[in-house]
């Protein structure tokens, strides 16, 4: 479980996160949604320790991040898998080298064992015969899947995904969403996804946190999101024509 308390972050005097409180539970997929610039990525980067918040506490299963030594932080990060928005694959390494990298770095397994694990996770994300290819030779969706494979190769306890289906077609986006959901359930991972994609919200959002201008505006489930009276979230959700029509149809049904 990850618990964040009163998280505050600013850049050059401009507050970006204004006292965020949230709990992300084990084995659940939590979505942080909000418009571009609402503070989602900053929140994720603060949780990962890539940015230092001015105030607040981040607690990983009773381990307070700000009280950890550098070594403890590095050890914690070995329990974290991250899927970056752009994939962040090492572009001068092959797919096999990309996925094997954490194993090479942090385990003493022989090459055959590592290769076995690499092939297992590649298979898990439904990719075959890509070991010797370079990231640039793969499509965006395949790169995202490689990124997921690299994130799960060390059996992480926590999985962070920053807009995992941005730039993907709707069908591939659903494949990626479902894959993350399956992996979360299978390995009982605490998964946190940043997204502004309403399809993701409906597909995999077990818990949803809505950020607006650096403030947690709303929290609930994908079922609650259509029943809430919160104007900020209804404006966000029904900014899509598709959802507007769904809403109108629902209202018509109710008479």
């Amino acid at each position, binding site marked *: 479980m990850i618990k964040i308390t009163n998280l505050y972050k600013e850049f050059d005097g401009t507050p970006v996160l204004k006292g965020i409180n949230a709990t992300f539970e084990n084995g659940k997929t939590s979505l942080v949604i909000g418009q571009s610039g609402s503070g989602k990525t900053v929140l994720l*980067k603060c949780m*990962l*320790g*890539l940015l230092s918040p001015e105030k607040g506490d981040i607690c990983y299963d009773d381990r307070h991040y700000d009280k950890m030594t550098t070594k403890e*932080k*590095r*050890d*914690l*990060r*070995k329990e*974290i898998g*991250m899927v*970056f*928005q*752009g994939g*962040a*694959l*090492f*572009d001068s390494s092959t797919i096999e080298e990309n996925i094997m*990298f*954490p194993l*090479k*770095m*942090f385990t003493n397994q022989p090459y055959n064992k590592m290769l076995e694990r690499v092939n297992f996770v590649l298979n898990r994300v439904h990719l075959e015969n890509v070991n010797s290819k370079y990231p640039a030779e793969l499509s965006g969706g395949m790169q995202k899947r490689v990124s997921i494979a690299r994130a799960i190769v060390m059996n992480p306890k926590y999985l*962070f995904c920053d807009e995992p289906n941005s730039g993907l077609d709707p069908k591939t986006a659903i494949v990626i969403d479902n894959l993350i959901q399956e992996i979360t359930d299978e390995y009982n991972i605490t998964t946190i996804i940043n997204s502004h994609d309403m399809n993701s919200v409906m597909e995999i959002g077990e818990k949803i946190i809505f950020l607006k201008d650096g403030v947690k505006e709303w929290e609930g489930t994908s079922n609650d999101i259509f029943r809430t009276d919160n104007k900020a979230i209804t404006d966000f959700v029904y900014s899509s024509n598709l959802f507007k029509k769904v809403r109108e149809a629902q209202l018509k049904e109710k008479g």
Partner: protein
Amino acid sequence: MLQQVFKKPQKKSVFRELLFKEIEDLGISSIGIVAFISFFVGGVVVIQTALNLESPLTPKYLIGYASRESLILEFSPTLISIILAGKVGSFITSSIGTMRVTEQIDALEVMGVNSLNHLVLPKIIANVFFYPFVIIISIALGIIGGWVAGNITGLVSSADYLLGIKSDFEPFHVTYSMIKTAVFAFVIATIPAYHGFYVKGGAIEVGKASTRAVVWTSVVIIVLNYFLTQMLLGK
């Protein structure tokens, strides 16, 4: 930054692999251009020295002597380092800078890797330990280039040139040259790495950082060259 860079590598086998890769990328791949430039500049040094020593009272072997000294003391360690600051420095800044703007460095950090140590230390060690060999090759090819040019132009005979190369040889000058090379190699690895690691923005900023890194590396090499010469050769 340097405190993080000089920490013990997290995994020796990975570090060894990276070190050999850097030796290839930064060192071996530079030998061709260094050899080409050194050979021709060696020739030019001999021609210019010969044309400036027109007095019949000046022995011809001095052409070989002057060429050797200028190659060992200044041309190879300093000018080749400036050329490498351009070639290798821009490579280091752009490769690390691209990793930064495409979040590859963030990916390393999230995995628990000390990214500064992982990316910069192998470059420093590869440079500091391999560049002296490159400079020795440069000196040797410069001398050979001078001998070839002297022979082709007829400005100095082989016998006179070789006599000059061997006369009044001061071994400390080679030591001085190697010390300078090692210091410049450190500068060529660290300044561009710094500019690449802390770049913000996108492709244009990476390009700008590369230019800035080459300029600063060259300036620092020139200034250090003055102080090292004063310290090691000054009386």
